[in-house]
Protein backbone atom coordinates (compact mmCIF):
# COMPACT_ATOMS: atom_id res chain seq x y z
CA UNK A 1 0.00 0.00 0.00
CA UNK A 2 1.50 3.25 -1.10
CA UNK A 3 -1.04 5.58 0.52
CA UNK A 4 1.41 6.76 3.18
CA UNK A 5 3.02 9.24 0.87
CA UNK A 6 -0.29 10.74 -0.18
CA UNK A 7 -1.11 12.30 3.22
CA UNK A 8 0.92 15.40 3.92
CA UNK A 9 3.27 15.09 6.86
CA UNK A 10 2.46 17.00 10.03
CA UNK A 11 6.08 16.97 11.03
CA UNK A 12 9.06 16.01 9.01
CA UNK A 13 12.68 15.80 10.05
CA UNK A 14 15.23 15.86 7.21
CA UNK A 15 18.86 14.88 7.59
CA UNK A 16 18.94 16.18 11.13
CA UNK A 17 22.34 16.15 12.88
CA UNK A 18 23.45 17.18 16.31
CA UNK A 19 27.12 17.07 17.22
CA UNK A 20 28.57 17.71 20.64
CA UNK A 21 32.20 18.36 19.80
CA UNK A 22 33.42 15.16 18.21
CA UNK A 23 30.42 13.16 19.44
CA UNK A 24 27.79 12.67 16.78
CA UNK A 25 24.71 12.21 18.98
CA UNK A 26 22.47 12.39 15.93
CA UNK A 27 23.65 11.96 12.38
CA UNK A 28 21.71 12.61 9.18
CA UNK A 29 18.46 11.42 10.68
CA UNK A 30 15.13 11.60 8.84
CA UNK A 31 11.59 10.72 9.82
CA UNK A 32 8.00 11.94 9.37
CA UNK A 33 4.78 11.97 11.36
CA UNK A 34 1.40 12.22 9.65
CA UNK A 35 -1.89 13.36 11.21
CA UNK A 36 -3.48 10.66 13.32
CA UNK A 37 -0.31 8.64 13.33
CA UNK A 38 1.63 7.26 16.26
CA UNK A 39 5.30 6.81 15.51
CA UNK A 40 7.33 4.90 18.04
CA UNK A 41 10.95 5.84 18.56
CA UNK A 42 12.97 2.89 19.78
CA UNK A 43 16.62 2.44 20.54
CA UNK A 44 19.02 1.47 23.26
CA UNK A 45 20.25 3.93 25.88
CA UNK A 46 22.47 6.50 24.22
CA UNK A 47 21.10 5.79 20.74
CA UNK A 48 20.08 9.44 20.31
CA UNK A 49 16.35 9.37 21.12
CA UNK A 50 16.60 12.11 23.70
CA UNK A 51 18.82 14.25 21.48
CA UNK A 52 16.30 13.92 18.69
CA UNK A 53 13.29 14.96 20.75
CA UNK A 54 15.23 17.81 22.29
CA UNK A 55 16.09 19.08 18.83
CA UNK A 56 12.45 18.80 17.74
CA UNK A 57 11.10 20.47 20.89
CA UNK A 58 13.48 23.43 20.74
CA UNK A 59 15.77 22.53 23.65
CA UNK A 60 18.79 22.08 21.34
CA UNK A 61 19.58 23.77 18.07
CA UNK A 62 20.44 21.06 15.53
CA UNK A 63 23.90 21.19 13.95
CA UNK A 64 22.52 20.39 10.52
CA UNK A 65 19.39 19.35 8.66
CA UNK A 66 15.91 20.79 8.88
CA UNK A 67 12.57 20.43 10.62
CA UNK A 68 9.40 20.94 8.59
CA UNK A 69 6.01 21.63 10.08
CA UNK A 70 3.23 20.97 7.56
CA UNK A 71 5.83 21.24 4.85
CA UNK A 72 7.29 24.56 6.00
CA UNK A 73 10.80 24.72 7.46
CA UNK A 74 10.87 25.93 11.06
CA UNK A 75 13.49 26.65 13.69
CA UNK A 76 12.89 26.93 17.41
CA UNK A 77 15.11 29.06 19.60
CA UNK A 78 13.35 27.91 22.78
CA UNK A 79 10.92 25.19 23.88
CA UNK A 80 8.31 27.96 24.16
CA UNK A 81 8.53 28.62 20.45
CA UNK A 82 8.06 24.95 19.66
CA UNK A 83 5.07 24.87 21.97
CA UNK A 84 3.53 27.91 20.33
CA UNK A 85 3.79 26.15 16.98
CA UNK A 86 1.95 23.15 18.40
CA UNK A 87 4.71 20.75 19.45
CA UNK A 88 4.24 19.71 23.04
CA UNK A 89 6.58 17.43 24.95
CA UNK A 90 5.23 15.37 27.82
CA UNK A 91 8.11 14.51 30.06
CA UNK A 92 8.59 11.35 31.99
CA UNK A 93 8.47 13.25 35.27
CA UNK A 94 5.28 14.92 34.10
CA UNK A 95 5.98 18.57 34.92
CA UNK A 96 2.84 19.05 36.98
CA UNK A 97 2.58 21.21 40.06
CA UNK A 98 1.21 18.63 42.50
CA UNK A 99 -0.38 21.12 44.85
CA UNK A 100 -2.54 22.74 42.18
CA UNK A 101 -5.80 21.61 40.63
CA UNK A 102 -6.15 20.14 37.15
CA UNK A 103 -7.37 23.49 35.83
CA UNK A 104 -4.50 25.40 37.40
CA UNK A 105 -2.04 22.93 35.87
CA UNK A 106 -3.55 23.19 32.42
CA UNK A 107 -3.32 26.98 32.60
CA UNK A 108 0.00 27.15 34.44
CA UNK A 109 1.86 30.22 33.20
CA UNK A 110 -1.13 31.29 31.08
CA UNK A 111 -3.81 31.81 33.74
CA UNK A 112 -6.98 33.61 32.68
CA UNK A 113 -7.80 36.69 34.73
CA UNK A 114 -11.17 38.38 35.22
CA UNK A 115 -12.03 41.70 36.81
CA UNK A 116 -13.78 41.46 40.16
CA UNK A 117 -16.01 44.46 40.98
CA UNK A 118 -15.10 45.77 37.55
CA UNK A 119 -11.51 46.68 38.39
CA UNK A 120 -9.69 44.14 40.56
CA UNK A 121 -7.89 41.47 38.51
CA UNK A 122 -8.41 38.01 40.01
CA UNK A 123 -7.73 34.51 38.71
CA UNK A 124 -10.71 33.14 36.84
CA UNK A 125 -10.86 29.78 38.61
CA UNK A 126 -14.32 29.03 37.30
CA UNK A 127 -13.17 29.34 33.70
CA UNK A 128 -10.12 27.20 34.46
CA UNK A 129 -12.21 24.47 36.09
CA UNK A 130 -14.74 24.61 33.25
CA UNK A 131 -12.10 24.33 30.53
CA UNK A 132 -10.38 21.55 32.45
CA UNK A 133 -13.60 19.59 32.78
CA UNK A 134 -14.30 19.94 29.05
CA UNK A 135 -10.77 18.94 28.11
CA UNK A 136 -10.65 15.94 30.38
CA UNK A 137 -14.03 14.84 29.06
CA UNK A 138 -12.59 14.79 25.56
CA UNK A 139 -10.01 12.35 26.88
CA UNK A 140 -12.76 10.26 28.45
CA UNK A 141 -11.58 11.23 31.89
CA UNK A 142 -14.43 12.29 34.14
CA UNK A 143 -13.55 14.18 37.26
CA UNK A 144 -16.05 15.09 39.92
CA UNK A 145 -13.89 17.28 42.13
CA UNK A 146 -12.11 19.78 39.94
CA UNK A 147 -10.56 21.69 42.84
CA UNK A 148 -8.63 18.67 44.17
CA UNK A 149 -4.85 18.99 43.82
CA UNK A 150 -3.36 16.62 41.26
CA UNK A 151 -1.37 14.88 44.01
CA UNK A 152 -4.67 13.17 44.82
CA UNK A 153 -4.65 11.40 41.49
CA UNK A 154 -2.88 8.24 40.44
CA UNK A 155 0.05 8.10 38.04
CA UNK A 156 -2.06 7.35 34.99
CA UNK A 157 -4.53 10.06 35.85
CA UNK A 158 -1.72 12.54 36.24
CA UNK A 159 -0.41 11.48 32.86
CA UNK A 160 -3.89 12.24 31.54
CA UNK A 161 -3.67 15.72 33.05
CA UNK A 162 -0.35 16.35 31.30
CA UNK A 163 -1.84 15.15 28.04
CA UNK A 164 -4.96 17.23 28.72
CA UNK A 165 -2.82 20.34 28.96
CA UNK A 166 -1.32 19.64 25.57
CA UNK A 167 -4.76 18.96 24.09
CA UNK A 168 -6.26 22.13 25.58
CA UNK A 169 -3.55 24.27 24.01
CA UNK A 170 -4.20 22.46 20.79
CA UNK A 171 -0.87 20.72 20.36
CA UNK A 172 -0.79 18.99 16.99
CA UNK A 173 2.26 16.93 17.79
CA UNK A 174 2.80 15.31 21.15
CA UNK A 175 6.18 13.93 22.03
CA UNK A 176 5.79 11.46 24.85
CA UNK A 177 8.94 10.37 26.61
CA UNK A 178 8.44 7.00 28.31
CA UNK A 179 4.86 7.82 29.34
CA UNK A 180 4.26 4.38 30.79
CA UNK A 181 7.60 3.82 32.49
CA UNK A 182 6.61 4.72 36.05
CA UNK A 183 3.17 3.14 35.97
CA UNK A 184 1.52 -0.07 37.05
CA UNK A 185 -0.05 -2.32 34.45
CA UNK A 186 -3.66 -1.05 34.68
CA UNK A 187 -2.37 2.49 34.54
CA UNK A 188 -0.27 1.70 31.48
CA UNK A 189 -3.42 0.54 29.73
CA UNK A 190 -5.12 3.82 30.52
CA UNK A 191 -2.28 5.75 28.95
CA UNK A 192 -2.36 3.53 25.88
CA UNK A 193 -6.07 4.23 25.55
CA UNK A 194 -5.34 7.96 25.88
CA UNK A 195 -2.89 7.74 23.00
CA UNK A 196 -5.60 6.07 20.92
CA UNK A 197 -7.83 9.07 21.69
CA UNK A 198 -5.15 11.49 20.48
CA UNK A 199 -4.78 9.49 17.32
CA UNK A 200 -8.53 9.54 16.74
CA UNK A 201 -8.43 13.34 17.06
CA UNK A 202 -5.96 13.52 14.18
CA UNK A 203 -2.93 14.54 16.21
CA UNK A 204 0.51 13.16 15.61
CA UNK A 205 2.27 11.34 18.41
CA UNK A 206 5.94 10.50 18.80
CA UNK A 207 6.08 7.76 21.38
CA UNK A 208 9.33 6.87 23.05
CA UNK A 209 9.45 3.67 25.00
CA UNK A 210 11.63 0.78 26.04
CA UNK A 211 8.60 -1.40 26.27
CA UNK A 212 8.06 -3.22 22.97
CA UNK A 213 4.70 -4.48 24.16
CA UNK A 214 3.44 -0.90 24.48
CA UNK A 215 5.01 0.06 21.19
CA UNK A 216 3.23 -2.72 19.38
CA UNK A 217 -0.03 -1.95 21.17
CA UNK A 218 -0.27 1.66 20.11
CA UNK A 219 2.02 2.58 17.21
CA UNK A 220 1.52 2.64 13.46
CA UNK A 221 5.18 2.74 12.64
CA UNK A 222 8.40 2.24 14.48
CA UNK A 223 11.65 4.06 13.83
CA UNK A 224 14.76 2.54 15.34
CA UNK A 225 17.78 4.61 16.30
CA UNK A 226 21.22 3.18 16.77
CA UNK A 227 24.26 5.28 17.64
CA UNK A 228 22.69 8.42 16.26
CA UNK A 229 21.63 7.03 12.90
CA UNK A 230 18.34 5.66 11.67
CA UNK A 231 18.79 1.91 11.85
CA UNK A 232 15.45 1.06 10.29
CA UNK A 233 11.82 1.96 9.90
CA UNK A 234 8.96 -0.58 9.88
CA UNK A 235 5.19 -0.61 9.81
CA UNK A 236 4.03 -2.25 13.00
CA UNK A 237 1.78 -4.55 10.99
CA UNK A 238 4.77 -5.80 9.03
CA UNK A 239 7.28 -6.48 11.77
CA UNK A 240 7.71 -8.34 15.04
CA UNK A 241 9.56 -8.06 18.33
CA UNK A 242 12.56 -10.06 17.16
CA UNK A 243 13.18 -7.91 14.13
CA UNK A 244 12.93 -4.69 16.15
CA UNK A 245 15.32 -5.98 18.79
CA UNK A 246 17.77 -6.93 16.06
CA UNK A 247 17.55 -3.44 14.62
CA UNK A 248 18.11 -1.92 18.06
CA UNK A 249 21.19 -3.91 18.97
CA UNK A 250 22.52 -4.16 15.43
CA UNK A 251 22.38 -7.92 15.08
Amino acid sequence: MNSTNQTASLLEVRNLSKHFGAVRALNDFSMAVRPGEVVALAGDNGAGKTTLIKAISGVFQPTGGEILLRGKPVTFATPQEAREKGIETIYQDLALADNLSIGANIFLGREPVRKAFGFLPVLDRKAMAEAARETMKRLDFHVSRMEAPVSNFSGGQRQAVAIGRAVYWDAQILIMDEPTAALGVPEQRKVISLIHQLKAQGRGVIFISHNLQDIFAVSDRIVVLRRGIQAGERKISETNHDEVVKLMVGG
Partner: protein
Amino acid sequence: MTSTSPAQPAEKHVAPQADHGDPARGWIARIAEGRAWLFLAGLIICFEIWSRLAFGATFVLNPFNLQSIAIFAVAPLLLATGQTFVIISGGIDLSLGFIMGLAAVIAAHATNLAGAAIPLPLAMLAGILASVIVAGVPGVINGLLISRLKVPPFIGTLGMFGVARGAAFLLAGGTTVPVQNSWFALLGNGRFYGVPYLVIITAVFVVVMHYLLSQTRFGQHNYAIGANVQAARRSGIDIRGHILRLYVLSAMCAGLGGALYAARFTAGAAQAGEPLLLDSVAAVVIGGASLFGGSGTIFGTVAGALVIAVIQYGLVFVNVEPFWQFIAVGVVIIISVLIDQAQRRFSGARQDE
Protein backbone atom coordinates in the same frame (compact mmCIF):
# COMPACT_ATOMS: atom_id res chain seq x y z
CA MET B 1 -5.60 6.36 49.12
CA THR B 2 -2.94 3.76 49.27
CA SER B 3 -0.76 4.17 46.25
CA THR B 4 -2.19 2.49 43.17
CA SER B 5 -3.25 -0.85 44.56
CA PRO B 6 -2.54 -3.60 42.04
CA ALA B 7 -5.72 -5.40 43.13
CA GLN B 8 -7.82 -2.89 41.24
CA PRO B 9 -9.44 -4.35 38.16
CA ALA B 10 -8.16 -2.95 34.92
CA GLU B 11 -10.58 -0.61 33.23
CA LYS B 12 -11.28 0.21 29.67
CA HIS B 13 -11.65 3.89 30.34
CA VAL B 14 -9.55 6.30 32.25
CA ALA B 15 -11.84 6.64 35.21
CA PRO B 16 -11.02 8.64 38.27
CA GLN B 17 -12.35 6.67 41.15
CA ALA B 18 -10.11 6.73 44.15
CA ASP B 19 -9.61 10.44 44.49
CA HIS B 20 -12.87 11.80 45.77
CA GLY B 21 -15.19 11.81 48.65
CA ASP B 22 -13.18 9.87 51.18
CA PRO B 23 -14.90 11.54 54.13
CA ALA B 24 -12.30 10.54 56.71
CA ARG B 25 -9.48 12.09 54.73
CA GLY B 26 -11.42 15.25 53.99
CA TRP B 27 -12.05 15.58 57.71
CA ILE B 28 -8.42 15.10 58.70
CA ALA B 29 -7.27 17.47 56.00
CA ARG B 30 -9.69 20.13 57.12
CA ILE B 31 -8.51 19.87 60.73
CA ALA B 32 -4.89 19.98 59.61
CA GLU B 33 -5.53 23.04 57.47
CA GLY B 34 -7.31 24.88 60.25
CA ARG B 35 -5.01 23.69 62.99
CA ALA B 36 -3.60 27.11 63.75
CA TRP B 37 -7.07 28.47 64.49
CA LEU B 38 -7.80 25.42 66.67
CA PHE B 39 -4.55 26.01 68.56
CA LEU B 40 -5.54 29.61 69.01
CA ALA B 41 -8.99 28.74 70.34
CA GLY B 42 -7.52 26.10 72.65
CA LEU B 43 -4.92 28.50 74.01
CA ILE B 44 -7.43 31.24 74.66
CA ILE B 45 -9.70 28.81 76.51
CA CYS B 46 -6.75 27.57 78.59
CA PHE B 47 -5.67 31.05 79.56
CA GLU B 48 -9.27 32.04 80.31
CA ILE B 49 -9.69 29.11 82.71
CA TRP B 50 -6.26 29.69 84.25
CA SER B 51 -6.94 33.38 84.71
CA ARG B 52 -10.35 32.82 86.31
CA LEU B 53 -9.08 30.14 88.67
CA ALA B 54 -5.95 32.02 89.68
CA PHE B 55 -7.16 35.62 89.77
CA GLY B 56 -10.93 35.46 89.36
CA ALA B 57 -10.53 37.76 86.33
CA THR B 58 -11.33 37.30 82.67
CA PHE B 59 -8.50 37.01 80.18
CA VAL B 60 -10.03 37.24 76.76
CA LEU B 61 -12.92 39.59 77.51
CA ASN B 62 -10.56 42.26 78.80
CA PRO B 63 -10.14 44.80 75.96
CA PHE B 64 -6.75 45.84 77.24
CA ASN B 65 -5.50 42.28 76.83
CA LEU B 66 -6.85 42.06 73.31
CA GLN B 67 -5.24 45.35 72.33
CA SER B 68 -1.94 44.26 73.82
CA ILE B 69 -1.98 40.92 72.05
CA ALA B 70 -2.82 42.58 68.75
CA ILE B 71 -0.02 45.14 69.15
CA PHE B 72 2.31 42.31 70.15
CA ALA B 73 1.46 40.42 66.98
CA VAL B 74 1.90 43.32 64.54
CA ALA B 75 5.64 43.19 63.91
CA PRO B 76 6.04 39.39 63.80
CA LEU B 77 3.00 39.20 61.56
CA LEU B 78 4.41 41.71 59.07
CA LEU B 79 7.64 39.73 58.83
CA ALA B 80 5.69 36.48 58.64
CA THR B 81 3.52 37.76 55.79
CA GLY B 82 6.59 38.20 53.59
CA GLN B 83 8.04 34.98 54.93
CA THR B 84 4.86 33.12 53.94
CA PHE B 85 5.42 33.99 50.28
CA VAL B 86 9.08 32.99 50.48
CA ILE B 87 8.42 29.69 52.27
CA ILE B 88 5.63 28.73 49.87
CA SER B 89 8.09 29.22 47.01
CA GLY B 90 10.39 26.73 48.72
CA GLY B 91 12.86 29.30 50.04
CA ILE B 92 13.48 31.02 53.35
CA ASP B 93 14.48 34.58 54.20
CA LEU B 94 16.72 34.80 57.25
CA SER B 95 17.57 38.46 56.70
CA LEU B 96 14.10 39.82 57.49
CA GLY B 97 14.81 40.53 61.15
CA PHE B 98 17.69 42.87 60.48
CA ILE B 99 16.10 44.35 57.37
CA MET B 100 13.36 45.38 59.77
CA GLY B 101 15.96 46.88 62.12
CA LEU B 102 17.59 48.71 59.22
CA ALA B 103 14.20 50.02 58.13
CA ALA B 104 13.40 51.21 61.67
CA VAL B 105 16.65 53.21 61.78
CA ILE B 106 16.02 54.63 58.29
CA ALA B 107 12.46 55.55 59.26
CA ALA B 108 13.72 57.46 62.30
CA HIS B 109 16.46 59.30 60.42
CA ALA B 110 14.31 60.08 57.40
CA THR B 111 11.40 61.34 59.46
CA ASN B 112 13.69 63.64 61.45
CA LEU B 113 15.46 64.92 58.34
CA ALA B 114 12.23 65.51 56.45
CA GLY B 115 10.63 67.08 59.52
CA ALA B 116 13.13 69.92 59.35
CA ALA B 117 12.00 70.85 55.85
CA ILE B 118 8.34 69.85 55.38
CA PRO B 119 5.22 69.64 57.58
CA LEU B 120 5.22 66.85 60.14
CA PRO B 121 2.52 64.61 58.61
CA LEU B 122 4.31 64.67 55.27
CA ALA B 123 7.61 64.03 57.00
CA MET B 124 6.04 60.98 58.63
CA LEU B 125 4.90 59.64 55.26
CA ALA B 126 8.33 60.37 53.77
CA GLY B 127 9.97 58.46 56.60
CA ILE B 128 7.74 55.42 56.11
CA LEU B 129 8.22 55.51 52.36
CA ALA B 130 11.99 55.83 52.70
CA SER B 131 12.22 52.90 55.08
CA VAL B 132 10.15 50.62 52.84
CA ILE B 133 12.16 51.58 49.74
CA VAL B 134 15.53 51.20 51.46
CA ALA B 135 14.39 47.82 52.79
CA GLY B 136 13.85 46.82 49.18
CA VAL B 137 17.58 47.17 48.45
CA PRO B 138 18.70 44.12 50.46
CA GLY B 139 15.67 42.39 48.97
CA VAL B 140 16.94 43.09 45.45
CA ILE B 141 20.37 41.74 46.39
CA ASN B 142 18.84 38.62 47.97
CA GLY B 143 16.73 38.10 44.88
CA LEU B 144 19.64 38.51 42.47
CA LEU B 145 21.88 36.21 44.50
CA ILE B 146 19.26 33.50 44.60
CA SER B 147 17.82 33.82 41.10
CA ARG B 148 20.89 34.69 39.01
CA LEU B 149 23.83 33.29 40.96
CA LYS B 150 21.93 30.25 42.26
CA VAL B 151 22.98 30.87 45.84
CA PRO B 152 20.80 28.73 48.13
CA PRO B 153 18.26 30.99 49.89
CA PHE B 154 19.40 29.84 53.32
CA ILE B 155 22.98 30.99 52.67
CA GLY B 156 22.24 34.08 50.60
CA THR B 157 19.84 35.54 53.13
CA LEU B 158 22.11 34.51 56.01
CA GLY B 159 24.81 36.66 54.45
CA MET B 160 22.33 39.49 54.08
CA PHE B 161 21.38 38.97 57.73
CA GLY B 162 24.93 40.02 58.62
CA VAL B 163 25.14 42.83 56.09
CA ALA B 164 21.81 44.37 57.11
CA ARG B 165 22.71 44.02 60.76
CA GLY B 166 26.02 45.85 60.35
CA ALA B 167 24.50 48.54 58.13
CA ALA B 168 21.70 49.15 60.62
CA PHE B 169 24.05 49.50 63.58
CA LEU B 170 26.39 51.78 61.58
CA LEU B 171 23.52 54.04 60.54
CA ALA B 172 22.20 54.14 64.08
CA GLY B 173 25.67 54.91 65.45
CA GLY B 174 25.38 51.91 67.72
CA THR B 175 22.44 53.32 69.66
CA THR B 176 18.71 53.99 69.23
CA VAL B 177 17.64 56.94 67.10
CA PRO B 178 14.79 58.94 68.69
CA VAL B 179 12.10 60.40 66.41
CA GLN B 180 10.94 64.00 66.90
CA ASN B 181 7.57 63.92 65.20
CA SER B 182 4.27 64.10 67.06
CA TRP B 183 2.34 62.64 64.11
CA PHE B 184 4.61 59.65 63.97
CA ALA B 185 4.14 59.08 67.70
CA LEU B 186 0.38 59.36 67.26
CA LEU B 187 0.45 56.81 64.46
CA GLY B 188 2.31 54.39 66.70
CA ASN B 189 0.21 54.83 69.80
CA GLY B 190 -3.15 56.27 68.78
CA ARG B 191 -6.40 54.36 68.58
CA PHE B 192 -9.51 54.46 66.49
CA TYR B 193 -12.53 53.40 68.60
CA GLY B 194 -10.13 51.48 70.81
CA VAL B 195 -8.34 49.75 67.92
CA PRO B 196 -4.70 50.83 67.61
CA TYR B 197 -3.81 52.41 64.27
CA LEU B 198 -0.95 49.94 63.92
CA VAL B 199 -3.39 47.06 64.06
CA ILE B 200 -5.65 48.66 61.46
CA ILE B 201 -2.73 49.28 59.09
CA THR B 202 -1.50 45.72 59.55
CA ALA B 203 -4.97 44.26 59.00
CA VAL B 204 -5.41 46.16 55.74
CA PHE B 205 -1.93 45.16 54.61
CA VAL B 206 -2.58 41.50 55.41
CA VAL B 207 -5.80 41.51 53.39
CA VAL B 208 -3.94 42.97 50.41
CA MET B 209 -1.26 40.29 50.75
CA HIS B 210 -3.91 37.59 50.99
CA TYR B 211 -5.34 38.88 47.73
CA LEU B 212 -1.89 38.84 46.13
CA LEU B 213 -1.22 35.26 47.20
CA SER B 214 -4.59 33.70 46.56
CA GLN B 215 -6.10 35.64 43.67
CA THR B 216 -3.32 36.74 41.33
CA ARG B 217 -1.06 35.05 38.84
CA PHE B 218 1.92 36.04 40.97
CA GLY B 219 0.49 34.05 43.88
CA GLN B 220 -0.40 31.10 41.67
CA HIS B 221 3.11 31.00 40.21
CA ASN B 222 4.49 31.15 43.72
CA TYR B 223 2.66 27.95 44.67
CA ALA B 224 3.70 26.27 41.42
CA ILE B 225 7.37 27.15 41.90
CA GLY B 226 7.28 25.81 45.45
CA ALA B 227 5.76 22.53 44.34
CA ASN B 228 7.76 21.85 41.19
CA VAL B 229 10.16 24.42 39.86
CA GLN B 230 10.83 22.33 36.73
CA ALA B 231 7.13 22.26 35.90
CA ALA B 232 6.89 26.00 36.44
CA ARG B 233 9.87 26.64 34.18
CA ARG B 234 8.54 24.38 31.43
CA SER B 235 5.22 26.18 31.63
CA GLY B 236 6.98 29.35 30.62
CA ILE B 237 6.91 31.08 34.00
CA ASP B 238 9.77 33.57 34.39
CA ILE B 239 11.36 31.95 37.43
CA ARG B 240 14.21 34.42 37.81
CA GLY B 241 11.97 37.45 37.64
CA HIS B 242 9.54 35.89 40.05
CA ILE B 243 12.20 35.03 42.64
CA LEU B 244 13.59 38.56 42.42
CA ARG B 245 10.18 40.14 42.99
CA LEU B 246 9.51 37.65 45.75
CA TYR B 247 12.51 38.62 47.89
CA VAL B 248 11.91 42.32 47.27
CA LEU B 249 8.35 41.81 48.45
CA SER B 250 9.40 40.03 51.64
CA ALA B 251 12.05 42.66 52.38
CA MET B 252 9.49 45.43 51.92
CA CYS B 253 7.13 43.67 54.33
CA ALA B 254 9.98 43.79 56.83
CA GLY B 255 10.50 47.45 55.88
CA LEU B 256 6.92 48.28 56.80
CA GLY B 257 7.42 46.33 60.02
CA GLY B 258 10.45 48.48 60.81
CA ALA B 259 8.60 51.72 60.09
CA LEU B 260 5.71 50.72 62.36
CA TYR B 261 8.19 49.68 65.06
CA ALA B 262 9.78 53.13 64.89
CA ALA B 263 6.32 54.67 65.20
CA ARG B 264 5.38 52.55 68.19
CA PHE B 265 8.53 53.33 70.16
CA THR B 266 9.17 56.75 68.54
CA ALA B 267 12.69 55.51 67.96
CA GLY B 268 14.57 53.38 65.47
CA ALA B 269 16.71 50.55 66.77
CA ALA B 270 18.94 48.25 64.75
CA GLN B 271 18.02 45.26 66.87
CA ALA B 272 14.27 45.90 66.44
CA GLY B 273 13.60 42.73 64.53
CA GLU B 274 16.27 40.49 65.97
CA PRO B 275 14.04 38.24 68.07
CA LEU B 276 11.28 38.31 65.47
CA LEU B 277 12.91 36.40 62.64
CA LEU B 278 12.37 32.98 64.19
CA ASP B 279 8.92 34.03 65.34
CA SER B 280 8.11 34.83 61.73
CA VAL B 281 9.21 31.40 60.53
CA ALA B 282 7.34 29.81 63.44
CA ALA B 283 4.16 31.73 62.61
CA VAL B 284 4.28 30.51 59.02
CA VAL B 285 4.88 26.90 60.05
CA ILE B 286 2.22 26.95 62.78
CA GLY B 287 -0.06 28.51 60.20
CA GLY B 288 0.12 25.36 58.12
CA ALA B 289 2.80 26.05 55.51
CA SER B 290 5.28 23.35 54.62
CA LEU B 291 8.96 24.25 54.80
CA PHE B 292 9.37 22.14 51.65
CA GLY B 293 7.31 24.69 49.78
CA GLY B 294 4.07 24.58 47.86
CA SER B 295 1.58 25.09 50.66
CA GLY B 296 0.49 27.74 53.13
CA THR B 297 -1.90 30.66 53.36
CA ILE B 298 -1.78 34.21 54.67
CA PHE B 299 -4.71 33.66 57.04
CA GLY B 300 -3.00 30.56 58.39
CA THR B 301 0.02 32.73 59.11
CA VAL B 302 -2.21 35.29 60.83
CA ALA B 303 -3.43 32.54 63.15
CA GLY B 304 0.15 31.38 63.65
CA ALA B 305 1.30 34.87 64.61
CA LEU B 306 -1.66 35.22 67.00
CA VAL B 307 -0.85 31.85 68.60
CA ILE B 308 2.66 33.08 69.35
CA ALA B 309 1.42 36.44 70.63
CA VAL B 310 -1.21 34.80 72.87
CA ILE B 311 1.37 32.41 74.34
CA GLN B 312 3.82 35.21 75.01
CA TYR B 313 1.31 37.66 76.42
CA GLY B 314 -0.79 35.03 78.19
CA LEU B 315 2.11 33.54 80.09
CA VAL B 316 3.11 36.99 81.30
CA PHE B 317 -0.50 37.70 82.23
CA VAL B 318 -0.81 34.60 84.38
CA ASN B 319 2.52 35.42 85.90
CA VAL B 320 4.67 32.56 84.70
CA GLU B 321 8.39 33.06 84.35
CA PRO B 322 8.99 34.51 80.89
CA PHE B 323 11.42 31.77 79.87
CA TRP B 324 8.50 29.37 79.59
CA GLN B 325 7.41 31.36 76.52
CA PHE B 326 10.25 29.92 74.48
CA ILE B 327 9.41 26.39 75.56
CA ALA B 328 5.72 26.83 74.84
CA VAL B 329 6.28 28.31 71.37
CA GLY B 330 8.80 25.58 70.60
CA VAL B 331 6.37 22.85 71.61
CA VAL B 332 3.63 24.37 69.45
CA ILE B 333 5.97 24.45 66.42
CA ILE B 334 6.86 20.80 66.87
CA ILE B 335 3.23 19.71 67.32
CA SER B 336 2.32 21.72 64.27
CA VAL B 337 4.91 20.01 62.10
CA LEU B 338 3.85 16.60 63.43
CA ILE B 339 0.25 17.29 62.43
CA ASP B 340 1.47 18.35 59.00
CA GLN B 341 3.42 15.10 58.57
CA ALA B 342 0.51 12.97 59.76
CA GLN B 343 -1.84 14.73 57.39
CA ARG B 344 0.51 14.11 54.47
CA ARG B 345 0.67 10.45 55.29
CA PHE B 346 -3.11 10.12 55.57
CA SER B 347 -3.86 12.12 52.47
CA GLY B 348 -1.63 9.82 50.43
CA ALA B 349 0.31 12.77 49.11
CA ARG B 350 3.16 11.31 47.15
CA GLN B 351 6.33 11.28 49.18
CA ASP B 352 8.67 10.36 46.40
CA GLU B 353 9.32 13.83 45.07
